[in-house]
């Protein structure tokens, strides 16, 4: 029985460590359970009621819950998050096909290719699904644009590589990388751009003589936002999807501050 108690204590200690680590991650005010020598019931993160009474003679550190720890919800509480998710509109990616290409041959043998060397030194190829456009250079490097998600961009790039393979070139699929992601969303209220450029002048550039939107260069994450009077926001310059979401969550409270409430 002593062994059982020991094992239980060890399990409780492990759980305590896990809970402390999770508490550090959560960053929100949560009740930290303090070991109570008086036998006080500690507060659990997911406020599950105690199902096991502390054994007599042992110091109850963390009573073991019936079910394992549930995953903790994200740090920002629901009341603060905007509830709006930016939609991805365009992904630009590059890949190295790993072999020199003869663009004239590609333009001759592919139906979906366009090649005008006097205008641009690359073949412009298009596929229907996913609806994308690729620029294929004679060095073997390729740029793929127009996809709506990272996975679609990768699939499209693979399809272009396959087309080039079928045209007789030893194409590979090296160093696929997402270079840029563009997202957009609508906050659904008008924004006083003149006010925003006054309070955030070190980040904003608003020149109505040149462009109707305000250009906001966010530092963390490094994203450029185009903010329009209608409340529509375009976010660009991201390498990963999370940067777009984070940038929007950063700008939303700032924009809310410019809503006129009479």
């Amino acid at each position, binding site marked *: 029985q002593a062994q059982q108690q020991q094992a239980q204590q060890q399990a409780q200690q492990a759980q305590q460590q896990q809970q402390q680590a999770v508490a550090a991650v959560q960053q929100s005010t949560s009740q930290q359970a303090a070991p109570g020598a008086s036998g006080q019931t500690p507060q659990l993160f997911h406020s599950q009621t105690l199902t096991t009474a502390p054994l007599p003679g042992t110091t109850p550190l963390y009573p073991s819950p019936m079910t394992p720890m549930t995953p903790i919800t994200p740090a920002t509480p629901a009341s603060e998050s905007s509830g709006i998710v930016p939609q991805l509109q365009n992904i630009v990616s590059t890949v190295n096909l790993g072999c020199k290409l003869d663009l004239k041959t590609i333009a001759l043998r592919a139906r979906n290719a366009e090649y005008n060397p006097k205008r641009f030194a690359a073949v412009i190829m298009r596929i229907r699904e996913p609806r994308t456009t690729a620029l294929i250079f004679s060095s073997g490097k390729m740029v793929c644009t127009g996809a709506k998600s990272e996975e679609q961009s990768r699939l499209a790039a693979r399809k272009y590589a396959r087309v080039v393979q079928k045209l007789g070139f030893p194409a590979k699929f090296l160093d696929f990388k997402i270079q840029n992601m563009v997202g957009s969303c609508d906050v659904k*209220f008008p924004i006083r751009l003149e006010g925003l450029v006054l309070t955030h002048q070190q980040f904003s550039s608003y020149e*109505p003589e040149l462009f109707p939107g305000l250009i906001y260069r966010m530092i963390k994450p490094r994203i450029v936002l185009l903010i329009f009077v209608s409340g529509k926001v375009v976010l660009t310059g991201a390498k990963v999807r999370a940067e777009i979401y984070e940038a929007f969550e950063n700008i939303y409270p700032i924009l809310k501050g410019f809503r006129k409430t009479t």
Partner: protein
Amino acid sequence: MPGGGRCPDCGSTELVEDSHYSQSQLVCSDCGCVVTEGVLTTTFSDEGNLREVTYSRSTGENEQVSRSQQRGLRRVRDLCRVLQLPSTFEDTAVAYYQQAYRHPGIRAARLQKKEVLVGCCVLITCRQHNWPLTMGTICALLYADLDVFSGTYMQIVKLLGLDVPSLCLADLVKTYCSSFKLFQASPSVPAKYVEDKEKMLSRTLQLVELADETWLVTGRHPLPVITAATFLAWQSLRPSERLRCSLARFCKLADVDLPCPASSRLQELLTVLLRMAEQLAWLQVLRLDKRSVVKHIGDLLQHRHTLVRKAFRDGTAELEGGEKELQGQGLGPGQGKAEAASSSLDLPEGKRPASPALLLPPCMLKPPKRICPPPPISTVTGDEDISDSEIEQYLRTPQEMRDFQKAQAARQAATGVPNPP
């Protein structure tokens, strides 16, 4: 100085280094005999160390002001004088030009860009002193394209890390209105069209403020709004004689260019004024339209703050409330609120003022051009198998290739252009 040598003539050891102009010589200080002479000419190997360096790699480029920069600085001063700017502006603009020139990207830029840079420096100086100068004016003076100007302007602001304040609307109104040639009678301007400058200025300012409050200015080029406001102010000061004059004719009379968007700004401003007029009982009975409302602009402007508050309901709060209602009751937001507004008033049908309109920018009031359906949730993983048949649809058949080659050859024969490499 003794150097271990002896004079061949007198045998003295007193030999002195004494250069004859640039030729080094060793001379006996006793008898004056020249013992050795330095070489006047240099050999080819010596000259190898003195070979010429290109200007851009020498330090001369940094030490003196290049001709191109001198030209640019002269252009900056000329532009300041043409615009009749105070002398302090000239020095600031010149300083900005010099600062910009230190950056290699600017030093190596095309002449067209350097020319436009002159305008950018002057514009930044004016903006920082709240001197209302539009980019259009500068581009016209420099015969430059607004696209080229905008690129250089954005680049230089970022490069120099400058904080450029926004264009001051009130100052721009004063400057722009003063340029209208309507304050004195002339052969082209009959007496009935002549107007007092102060009256016109103050009314135009009020109309521009009204436009700003009702979301007609944000995001738009400032000048067309001011043109429309000036026109309305001028018309309203003597409506009986001036109502028949159109906006285009007005600008021609005043010897001012008519910017394209001014007519639509005019219509938007008149719509706002009409909504305000509907809130005044004695104007509501007159059933005004866009022409007749001009006669009452004076009254409307006098009470503009109250009228705007009554005529428009806060669009931003409405959008939120409307959406919740839509979810809860299935009613349209406008419908629900209009009923609430009308039921709260005691006046009988026909006599109550119109229910308030939404105060939103015009772009939010127009129906969307096309309804974008939300994109279907994609289940693509990126690693799916790619079927051969899907790829083969993108490959030409041999017959197609032959046809394509024939067509290309025929086209080249017709135009006489050689095959591209």
